[in-house]
C-alpha cells in the first residue's frame, strides 16, 4: 500500500458568511509522507484537511490533485480516502466488525474477501476479541482503534486524521501515538494528521505545517520548526523558548546577568533565543551568566527552573540534577553556542509568509 502524492494549488476557503477560514495557498505532499497540520484552534488546519478530504470545496480557482489526478470536483466518497474523525464517527447501529467491514461492503467487495480483510484489520489493530461488541460498549482507546481499522480497511490512497487522539487521556494518547507512528511507517501511506498538540506533531510528522489565522506560518521538518522557527509565532507555539535581549560588543553579548562570547562581527542590540535544554547549570562562581531561582518545578525526569535576573524577563532552564532547588538561590548558567539563534537567521531557510491576499508557501 503506497500512497499517492497530494498537490494543492491556490486553495482557499471562504465560508458563506464571509469569514476566510483559509487564505489561498499551495501545498505539495509527497507519496508516503506524513504531514502534520499544527496550530491553535481556528487556525484553518481542519478546513485544510476537509478540503483535501473533499468534505469542503475550495474557493473558485483552487485545485486539489491526488497523484497528478485532479479530484477537485469529486466528493469525498469518490476520492478513496480513509478518514479518522475526532469523535470517531463510528456507526452505533453496527458492531465493531460491521463498522470495519462497512467500506468494503459499500465497495461491493465479495463477502469472502470482505471477511478475510476485516479479520486482518481487527487482528492488526488488536481488537479481534471485540468484533461482536456494539460501539457503545467500547472505551475511548478501543473506539480509536476501530476507527483506524475502518479507515485503513478500504486501502485508501490517502489517510486523513482529524485530531484522533484529542478525546483520550494523556497516558493512552502517548501509547496510541507510538502505535499510529508504527502503523503509518509500516503502511507507507500518505497521511495528513491534524493536531493542536505540538508534541504529537513532532513525534509523528515527516514535515509539520504550522498554521495561524488561516495562513501557513512555517513548513518544515520537526527539527526545522523546532530549531529554526521562521517567526515569533512558531517559536512560541512549538516548545518552550527563552529570549535574552542584550548588547553585542567586541565578540560578546552583555546583559544584566553577565556576558558571554558571541560572534565577533555582531554589534548593537541583539535578541537571542534558546530552548531550555540548551542551557547548563553551573556553579555561580565564574559562570558567564548569574541569576536567582524564582521557582523550581520537579517533574520527575528533570527539574524545570525559572531563573530571574539574567535578562529582562525570567528564563526557563531544565536540569537533571537530583537535588532540591530553593527560591532565591543563586545559580550560574552556561549556554550551548549551538543552541543559540536569532529569529532573523532562523527565518532564512524558509520563505517568510507574506501579508497579502494570495500568499504562496511552497514546500
Amino acid at each position, binding site marked *: 500500500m503506497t500512497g499517492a502524492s497530494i498537490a494543492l494549488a491556490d486553495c482557499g476557503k471562504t465560508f458563506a458568511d464571509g469569514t476566510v477560514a483559509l487564505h489561498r495557498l499551495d501545498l505539495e505532499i509527497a507519496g508516503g509522507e506524513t504531514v502534520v497540520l499544527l496550530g491553535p*484552534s481556528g487556525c484553518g488546519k481542519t478546513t485544510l484537511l476537509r478540503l483535501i478530504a473533499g468534505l469542503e470545496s475550495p474557493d473558485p480557482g483552487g485545485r486539489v490533485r491526488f497523484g497528478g489526478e485532479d479530484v477537485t470536483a469529486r466528493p469525498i466518497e469518490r476520492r478513496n480516502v480513509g478518514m479518522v474523525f475526532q469523535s470517531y*464517527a463510528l*456507526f452505533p447501529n453496527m458492531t465493531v466488525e460491521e463498522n470495519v467491514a*462497512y*467500506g468494503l461492503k*459499500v465497495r461491493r467487495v465479495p463477502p469472502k474477501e470482505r471477511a478475510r480483510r476485516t479479520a486482518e484489520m481487527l487482528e492488526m489493530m488488536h481488537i479481534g476479541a471485540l468484533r461482536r461488541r456494539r460501539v457503545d460498549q467500547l472505551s475511548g482507546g478501543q473506539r480509536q482503534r476501530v476507527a483506524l481499522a*475502518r479507515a485503513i480497511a478500504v486501502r485508501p490512497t490517502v489517510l486523513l486524521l482529524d485530531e484522533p487522539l484529542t478525546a483520550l487521556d494523556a497516558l493512552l494518547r502517548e501509547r496510541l501515538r507510538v502505535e499510529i507512528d508504527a502503523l503509518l511507517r509500516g503502511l507507507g501511506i500518505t497521511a495528513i494528521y491534524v493536531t*493542536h498538540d505540538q508534541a504529537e506533531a513532532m513525534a509523528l510528522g515527516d514535515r509539520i505545517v504550522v498554521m495561524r489565522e488561516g495562513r501557513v506560518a512555517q513548513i518544515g521538518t520537526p527539527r526545522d520548526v523546532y530549531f529554526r522557527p521562521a517567526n515569533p509565532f512558531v517559536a512560541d507555539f512549538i516548545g518552550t523558548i527563552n529570549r535574552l535581549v542584550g548588547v553585542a560588543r567586541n565578540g560578546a553579548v552583555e546583559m544584566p546577568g553577565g556576558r558571554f562570547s558571541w560572534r565577533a562581527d555582531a554589534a548593537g542590540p541583539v535578541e537571542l533565543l534558546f530552548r531550555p535544554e540548551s542551557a547548563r547549570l553551573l556553579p555561580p562562581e565564574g559562570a558567564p551568566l548569574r541569576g536567582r531561582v524564582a521557582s523550581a518545578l520537579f517533574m520527575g525526569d528533570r527539574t524545570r527552573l525559572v531563573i530571574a535576573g539574567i535578562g529582562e524577563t525570567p528564563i526557563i532552564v531544565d536540569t537533571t540534577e537530583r537535588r532540591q532547588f530553593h527560591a532565591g538561590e543563586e545559580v550560574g548558567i552556561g549556554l550551548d553556542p549551538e543552541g543559540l539563534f536569532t529569529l532573523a537567521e532562523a527565518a532564512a531557510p524558509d520563505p517568510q509568509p507574506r501579508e497579502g491576499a494570495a500568499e504562496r508557501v511552497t514546500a
Partner: protein
Amino acid sequence: MKRAGLFYAQLAFTILVCAFMVVPVVLSILAGVTANFFQGIGSGLTLRWVVQVWGLYADTIRLSVIIALACLAATLIAGVPTAYVLAKRPGRVARLIEELLVLPIAIPGLAIALGLITTYGAFEGFRKSWLFILAGHVVFTLPFMVRAVLAVLLAIDFRTLEEGAASLGAGFWQRFLGVVLPNCRPGILAGSLMVVTLSLGEFNLTWMLHTPLTKTLPVGLADSYASMRLEVASAYTLVFFVILVPLLVLLQRFGQPARRAERAAPVAATVPERAPA
C-alpha cells in the same frame, strides 16, 4: 410528628386527585359491562353491550384503524425526510419552517377543519371520502413525527456519522438508508406511536370533516353517547380503551427519543484546545 402530618396530607391530596381522574373512567368501564346501570352492579355483569357495539360500530373502528395506519404511512414518508432536511440545513429558513410546523398544534382543530373545507370542499369526491379526514389527521400529526425524528437526529450528531460513511465510499442513498435511518430509529418509533395514538383519538377535526358514511371511532362514540343507551356508549368506551391503552403504554416506554439517543450516543469528545499564542 409534624413531618408525618404533612406527609399524610400530601398522600391524601394525591389520592384525591388520582381518584378524581380515575373514578369516572372506572365507572364508565363498569357501566359498559353492567346489565342495567340504573339498577347498579347488582343487576349483573354482561358482555351484551360490547357485542352490540361491535355490531353497530365495527366499521367506525375499522375506519379509524385504516386512517391511523394511512396517517402513519403518510407522516413517515413526508416527516422523516423533512426532519432530515431541517436537521441538515442550518440557517434561518430551516428554523422558520421548524416553527411553522408547530402551528397545526396551536390552532384549534375546528379551525384547521374549516380551512380544509373551504379550500378543498368543492372537490366533491375528495370531500366525501375518508381521505378527507386523513388529510386533516396528517396536517395535525405531521409536526409530532418531524419533531421526534429531528430531536434524535440532532442528538446523535448524524452529520459526522454521514461524513464517516461518505469517507468510506458510501453515496447518498447508502448513507441515508444504511446509517442515518437505522440510527434515528428511536425517534421514528416514538413519532410513529404518537401519530397512531393521536390519529385514533382525534375528535375535533374529524367531527367537522366526517360525513355520515365516514365516521371514525371517536365520532361514533360521541354519536352513541348522544343517541344510544348509556351502557352501549360505555361499552364503546371500553373498546376504545382496549385499543388505545397498549399504545399509550408503548408511548411511555419509547416516547423520549432524545434522552434515549443521548444515552446511547458516544460520550461527546471534550476538546482541550491550546490557547492561541
